[in-house]
């Protein structure tokens, strides 16, 4: 991990900030798409370093945050049934559903486990033929290929006790929805580096052409993000719009063809509800008919579960970059990581939680002045 040090170097970072300041002649509103990028920006206080004219707003790219309420309810429903082991990534356990969360299901005797990779869930299913093992698969294009491979292997190995509750979401349709909104303020996007590592950035060219907005695919370290911001500011100031790639050490134009093939084998594009945003057409990945025997939603008959989100949380506006977490009257008082009102307060990559954990002192200081 030594090679990362240069991406966290104060001198290099300050140099880029100076260059940004030199080029900026008017205010610009930029959005980072990915929750991992939001986390870095807050953790390193990068927004504090930028010239006053550059406003960063935080996009809908935290997979935990945008997983719809009804999907959480489905997972809770399935995990509560006898004989079922529900396996997921750690931070999904704390996300509130309509009435409870998976941590509470676990505390009351449900078998809920955490893994880092779906292949571990497969391994568990093979070792425990008496359990019905369900992998709760959420995330963007980044996690989809590994999840696809798990389903593909389960089919090839003839596993009958493994299934997947899949609720994948896609980035480009979300950007399209944001840009199509009459309330859109965003003038440039930092594209999602990990997603583009898998998918490449061909699909972002259509967005640039259609909406005349620059997109720079960015990495996740402080210097990555500052460089991406500099590239966006340069395009905007020069009046250009293009897709550019800052994260060249990971992202290529075509992405990863093997990963994309695995993804297309098992998943197909479907409409998807996003927490805080609502339904976006063709914005998700669902399990193909050929793999229906591994689709937990069908096997457990949870397709009919629906849930509506409450109106008292402004996460919709936050996830669309219309408001900052601190604009919310509940922020840090009625809504905290212990008692989250909305999903962005739950995951460490959620915009509200990132503000809460890293930036409260700055707000206190500003309040005093």
């Amino acid at each position, binding site marked *: *991990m030594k090679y990362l040090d240069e991406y966290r170097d104060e001198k290099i970072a300050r140099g880029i900030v100076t260059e940004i300041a030199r080029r900026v002649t008017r205010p610009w509103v930029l959005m980072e798409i990915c929750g991992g990028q939001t986390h870095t920006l807050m953790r390193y206080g990068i927004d504090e370093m930028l010239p006053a004219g550059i406003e960063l707003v935080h996009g809908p790219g935290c*997979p935990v945050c945008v997983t719809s309420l009804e999907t959480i309810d489905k997972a809770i429903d399935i995990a509560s049934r006898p004989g079922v082991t529900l396996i997921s990534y750690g931070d999904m356990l704390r996300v509130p559903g309509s009435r*409870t969360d998976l941590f*509470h299901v676990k*505390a009351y005797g449900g078998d809920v486990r955490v893994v880092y990779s779906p292949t571990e869930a497969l391994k568990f299913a093979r070792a425990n033929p008496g359990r019905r093992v369900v992998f709760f698969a959420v995330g963007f294009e980044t*996690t989809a290929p590994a999840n696809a491979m798990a389903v593909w292997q389960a089919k090839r190995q003839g596993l009958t006790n493994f299934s997947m509750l899949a609720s994948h979401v896609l980035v480009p349709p979300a950007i399209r929805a944001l840009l199509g909104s009459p309330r859109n303020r965003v003038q440039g996007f930092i594209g999602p580096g990990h997603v583009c590592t898998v998918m490449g950035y061909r699909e972002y060219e259509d967005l640039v052409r259609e909406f005349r907005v620059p997109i720079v695919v960015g990495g996740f370290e402080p210097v990555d993000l500052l460089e991406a911001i500099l590239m966006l500011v340069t395009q905007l100031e020069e009046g250009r719009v293009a897709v550019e790639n800052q994260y060249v050490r990971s992202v290529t134009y075509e992405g990863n063809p093997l990963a994309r093939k695995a993804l297309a084998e098992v998943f197909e594009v479907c409409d998807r509800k996003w927490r805080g945003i609502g339904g976006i057409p063709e914005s998700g990945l669902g399990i193909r008919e050929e793999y229906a025997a591994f689709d937990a939603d069908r096997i457990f008959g949870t397709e009919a579960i629906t849930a509506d989100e409450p109106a008292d949380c402004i996460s919709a506006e936050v996830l669309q970059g219309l408001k900052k977490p601190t604009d919310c009257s509940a922020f840090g008082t009625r809504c905290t990581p212990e008692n989250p009102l909305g*999903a962005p307060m739950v995951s460490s990559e959620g915009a509200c939680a990132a503000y*809460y954990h890293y930036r409260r*002192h700055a707000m206190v200081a500003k309040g005093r002045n």
Partner: protein
Amino acid sequence: MPRQSHLDVALSCPAPIAPAESVLLGHGSGGRMSADLLRNILLPALQNPVLDRLDDQAIVEVGGSRIAFTTDSFVVKPLFFPGGDVGTLAVNGTVNDLAMGGAEPLFLSLALILEEGLPLDTLRRVMESIRVAAALARVVVVTGDTKVVEKGSGDGLFVNTSGIGLVPPGVRLSADQARPGDCVLLSGTIGDHGITILSQREGLEFESSVASDTAALHTLVSDMFLASPAIRCLRDPTRGGLSSALNEIAVRSGVGIELEEATIPVRDEVQGACEMLGLDPLYVANEGKLVAIVDSASADALLEAMQRHPLGRDARIIGKVTGAHPAMVTLRTRLGTSRIVDLLSGDQLPRIC
């Protein structure tokens, strides 16, 4: 609770989900949920001035001597891991809780809760570790207890140790002693133990060359006292990591603490594993490190003393105590910006991508 009429609209969610009505794993994390459990349920039943200090050990006067007394239970999974096992932890953990009070550890008790079906060979190995760790730390296990529970009622082997030590005259350490201007010293790299355990856990195994740092710290502490008595507070940042230990000191002393990120030693392997898992080493457990709040005039002497001891070779001054932002720990990042080092609510959760 007020009676609900049919006009009360049920709180449509996502919440707030009512605070837990049963114990959740997060209650054992050492974070905010643990603190709430302590404050709301455990302490009200027992209040007394010794307990209310909430240090890692109680200090009581008996016949003119000041005795440090502490207890700790060890429920680690897996039982054996690179660098140690549940037995080594049980001895070193309790020795360290005494040492953080400035006490010289003397006697331990050992209570074992064995699950039906536990291989006797496992028990033999753990007992051998306990023997070796106690001999190394020069403490004597003088009393004990064994219980067996039915299969399924325990997780193989739970160990509890209590310990007694003698506090030398004039030594008064407590989390409420930090003063603005003091220095924060750390004895070495953070996160080694937590990442070692995580790398061995079922479902999460990953290749790692890190080993647990479990070690008895009392000789390091006595070397420090020889160098200077100007030590205000010692903590071993176990569960909840460096962040939880420093947050506790900041709250109890009513001071702010400012850390310098670049000075906090983290092994490359630990940093790498944390990057991969989306964890922050500041919150990862240690079993052989201490953090000291000391008078700034003696900081250099104490640092040198620590660095001369094998368990303090990588010791650093990592920050200072300040009057600004009381009860809050902040960190100056490598980029020169500043952020909060918050108390976590429950356990750190591995993130998705």
